[in-house]
């Protein structure tokens, strides 16, 4: 059923200078990526950054304006049908048939992927098992809770054992426990050699990926493992500052010397500074001088969210300079 990807190619997905324009708007701006077999690759970025557009081009649903991409050894522009037979795709919005039963949705996709008759019952069994929906075959899909639907959608997308799967924000709108279970499934598949390309805007989910690309305004602004990104991309060290009131503190600190960036995180501030040890007393004094109550200050390890904020502001200010 599945054609083997080209043997010499150890990359499941290769993207070269991929561009997608909608009129004047550049949704995807010269993206280059190589994703290895069996990798869980995260595509991280805010809404509208170009994540879904990229994934849709890789699935052959959108024609690239320019550039090339190969998925499982096939060119997405020239051999979209071969691409489709070798991928599983879960779109952002839940898009199975709500008026069909669980089993009917599974049978439909088994048919669409031409699962041969002698393997049909085995694949259906496997899908129900994987999606943890055994015994629920005859429920109407529309009545399932969000997490179940998500697992069913994943099941239908992978029941033909594709070597590459694309998941577009698979866990949006799903409760945290279901989300955790979902990621366990993704890792399980990756261990079996499946390449997983997943987009998300949940920072904590990004940590589950082997490698990450941060996409912002159609451009990839950083690429690496989560820990690499955290170390490399921060231009300095990170301080957590508890103070009152937060709003004016951010304003004041943004113009303070030695502070590269300041942002609110929960009920505290995160400051990017060149040297944490030197900065702590200075920040303390600076805030007191501006009659802001200062609590605890400490050096912390940056989270991906910090990395993301830092990179996107860097990107923005660079743009402003060139503009």
């Amino acid at each position, binding site marked *: 059923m599945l054609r083997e990807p080209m043997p010499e190619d150890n990359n499941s997905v290769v993207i070269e200078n991929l561009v997608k324009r*909608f009129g004047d708007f550049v949704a995807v701006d010269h993206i280059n990526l190589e994703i290895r077999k069996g990798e869980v690759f995260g595509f991280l970025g805010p809404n509208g950054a170009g994540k879904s557009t990229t994934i849709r081009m890789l699935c*052959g*649903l959108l024609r690239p304006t320019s550039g090339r991409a190969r998925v499982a050894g096939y060119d997405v522009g020239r051999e979209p049908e071969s691409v*489709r037979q070798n991928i599983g795709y879960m779109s952002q919005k839940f898009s199975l048939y709500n*008026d*069909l039963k669980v089993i009917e949705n599974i049978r*439909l996709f088994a*048919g*669409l992927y*031409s699962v041969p008759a002698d393997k049909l019952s085995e694949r259906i069994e496997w899908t129900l098992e994987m999606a943890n929906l055994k015994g629920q075959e005859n429920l109407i899909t529309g009545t399932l809770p969000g997490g179940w639907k998500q697992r069913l959608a994943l099941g239908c997308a992978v029941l033909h054992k594709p070597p590459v799967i694309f998941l577009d924000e698979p866990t949006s709108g799903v409760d945290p426990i279901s989300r955790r279970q979902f990621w366990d499934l993704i890792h399980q598949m990756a261990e079996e050699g499946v390449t997983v390309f997943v987009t998300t805007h949940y920072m904590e989910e990004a940590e589950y990926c082997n490698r990450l690309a941060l996409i912002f305004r159609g451009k990839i602004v950083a690429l690496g493992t989560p820990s690499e990104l955290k170390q490399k991309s921060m231009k300095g060290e990170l301080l957590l500052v508890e103070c009152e009131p937060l709003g004016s503190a951010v304003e004041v600190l943004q113009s303070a010397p030695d502070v590269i960036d300041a942002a609110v995180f929960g009920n505290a501030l995160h400051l990017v500074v060149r040297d944490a040890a030197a900065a702590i007393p200075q920040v303390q004094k600076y805030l007191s001088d501006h009659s802001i109550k200062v609590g605890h200050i400490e050096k912390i390890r940056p989270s991906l969210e910090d990395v993301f904020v830092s990179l996107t502001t860097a990107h923005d200010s660079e743009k402003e300079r060139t503009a």
Partner: protein
Amino acid sequence: MSFTRFLAVARKEVVQILRDARSLIIVLIMPVVLVLLFGYGVNLDLKGLPVYVYDRDGSQQSQDLLKRFQASAYFDVVRVVNDYPALTRSLDDGHAKMGIVVPWDFSQRLRDGLPTQVQALVDGSDDNTANVAIGYAQAVVQGYSSDIQLNWLRNRGQLVQPAAVGVETRTWYNEDLESSAFIVPGVLALVMSVIGAFLTSLTIAREWERGTMEQLISTPVTPLEIMLGKLAPYFVIGMFDVIVCALIAIFWFQVPFRGSFLTLLVSSAMFMVVVLSLGFFISVIAKSQLAASQIALLVTFLPAFLLSGFLYSIEQMPVVLQWITRILPARYYVSVLKKIFLKGTPTALLYTDLVPLAVFTLVLAMLATHSFHKRLA
């Protein structure tokens, strides 16, 4: 073309139709309702027209004349009034469609051998009914008049020669001049327009609206497999409905069926492909269920209703409209229906309808096939 994928799509579509009460009603009940509605409701025959009379004479002769009106199947003398205002009122409020006034000297003048007249007031707001009513009223009075003449002559001992020339009419095809026989066969075209174009216009648009299309086209299924898989169930349903409607027409409304049943099936199948293709094409370009269904009704149901010759004879239309009807597939199908039901025209003589219908079938099927692409933008 993979049969497995086609079957997967078709099976899914059938389950969706069976699970949707709205579609089921349209598929199973609507055709029967339409046939009954048009069979009973639309009656172009004039029968039992309500008539008020004002008999100012009140003689044996005037009663004889009025009895002839009552005896005619076309009129129903519902009330006798005693003054003009009551008669006028009955026409104003629509209780009567015709008022007949017999003058006070009616019998007197007849006895004296003088020409006399009765007045007929006709509600002309429906010109068609009025025209027919006037014709029938004239015929009734004419008959009465010639009987009087004959009697008059006989009473004077004259040898009476029966009328020199008469018309011996024989009505062919629709012997009893039942309008249901004229209308009901054409209902098949309406039913198919609704099933074919209206229902299918929703199928693709619905998938775009619900987002299921994106998942569907991410699989290896081809546009042709999607189209055939989606349309096949509707084709079967449409043909089933055609047969049901034909049976109701033949056995319930006693519409004669004189042609070939095979020709009925073949021409219906062609027209089914026409409306399915149109519905599919509309669905592809409209991308929203609301827009698609409205366009579908506009381009299939309305022309089938108004311009196909189903109710209104094409020969009676203005020339421009007559030309427009030539590009309507429904026109050819309705024509075939009327010919094979009533006339029993041999299939070979139907080529003037069947050939254009076949051309439309091919062209629209190709249009539909090429309209759908597996791309989001």
